[in-house]
C-alpha cells in the first residue's frame, strides 16, 4: 500500500525555470493538499482540492498553480521559480470533510532554487 507518493524527491532549479511536482494517492481520497514547510514558519497551505476537477487557493498560493485532472493525482506547478520558493513541499490527502485534520502526507519534495 503506497499511500501518498511524491515525485521528484529532490530538484534544483535556476531562477526563472519551471517545473511540476506530482502527487499520487491510492487511497481513493477526495481531498488533496499541497503544503510547504520552512524553518521557523511551520506548514503552510499552498492550494487544495476537494475533488476531481476542483482546486482552491490556500494561504500562500502566489507563484504556484495546481491541477487535479484525475482523482488520484494532484500536480503543483511553478511557472517561474524564485529563490523564495526554496522549500520542502508536502502533498497530503484526506478522506472526508469532517476529518480534514487527519491527513496522510507524502515523504516530501525538496526544492532548491538558485
Amino acid at each position, binding site marked *: 500500500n503506497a499511500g*501518498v507518493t511524491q515525485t521528484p524527491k529532490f530538484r534544483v532549479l535556476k531562477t526563472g525555470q519551471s517545473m511540476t511536482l506530482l502527487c499520487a494517492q491510492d487511497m481513493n481520497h477526495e*481531498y488533496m493538499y499541497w503544503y510547504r514547510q520552512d524553518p*521557523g*514558519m*511551520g*506548514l*503552510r*497551505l499552498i492550494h*487544495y482540492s*476537494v475533488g476531481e476537477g476542483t482546486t482552491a487557493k*490556500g*494561504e500562500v498560493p502566489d507563484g504556484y498553480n495546481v491541477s487535479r485532472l484525475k482523482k488520484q493525482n494532484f500536480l503543483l506547478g511553478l511557472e517561474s521559480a524564485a529563490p523564495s520558493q526554496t522549500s520542502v513541499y*508536502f502533498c*497530503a490527502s484526506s478522506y472526508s*470533510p469532517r*476529518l*480534514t*485534520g*487527519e*491527513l*496522510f*502526507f*507524502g*515523504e*516530501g519534495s525538496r526544492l532548491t532554487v538558485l
Partner: protein
Amino acid sequence: EDQVTQSPEALRLQEGESSSLNCSYTVSGLRGLFWYRQDPGKGPEFLFTLYSAGEEKEKERLKATLTKKESFLHITAPKPEDSATYLCAVRLNNAGNNRKLIWGLGTSLAVNP
C-alpha cells in the same frame, strides 16, 4: 489572531524519563486539534484527533489530552524510537476557513538510550 504555540521547542530525555509536550492555542472557535509525528526527511504522520475539552486519546506510550486552551502530549517511559518532531494543528470552526489548519512549529524530541 488565530495562533498555535508549541513548547518547548526542543526536549532531550533519557530513555524511561516521562515528560509532556504542550500545544496552546488562541483561536476563534476550535473544531478539532490534531497531533502529528514527523521523522527527519519524512512527512508528518497522524497520531490523534481531539475535539472537546476533557477528551483523551492513547497510543502505546503516548497520551494526548485537551483543555479549553491547550493540549498536552504525555510521553510515558519513552524509548529512543520516540525521537521525532511532534506537531500540533488546530482546525478552525469558521465557514470561511473550513479547511484551514493552523500548525504549530513543533517540539523536537530526542530520547537518549
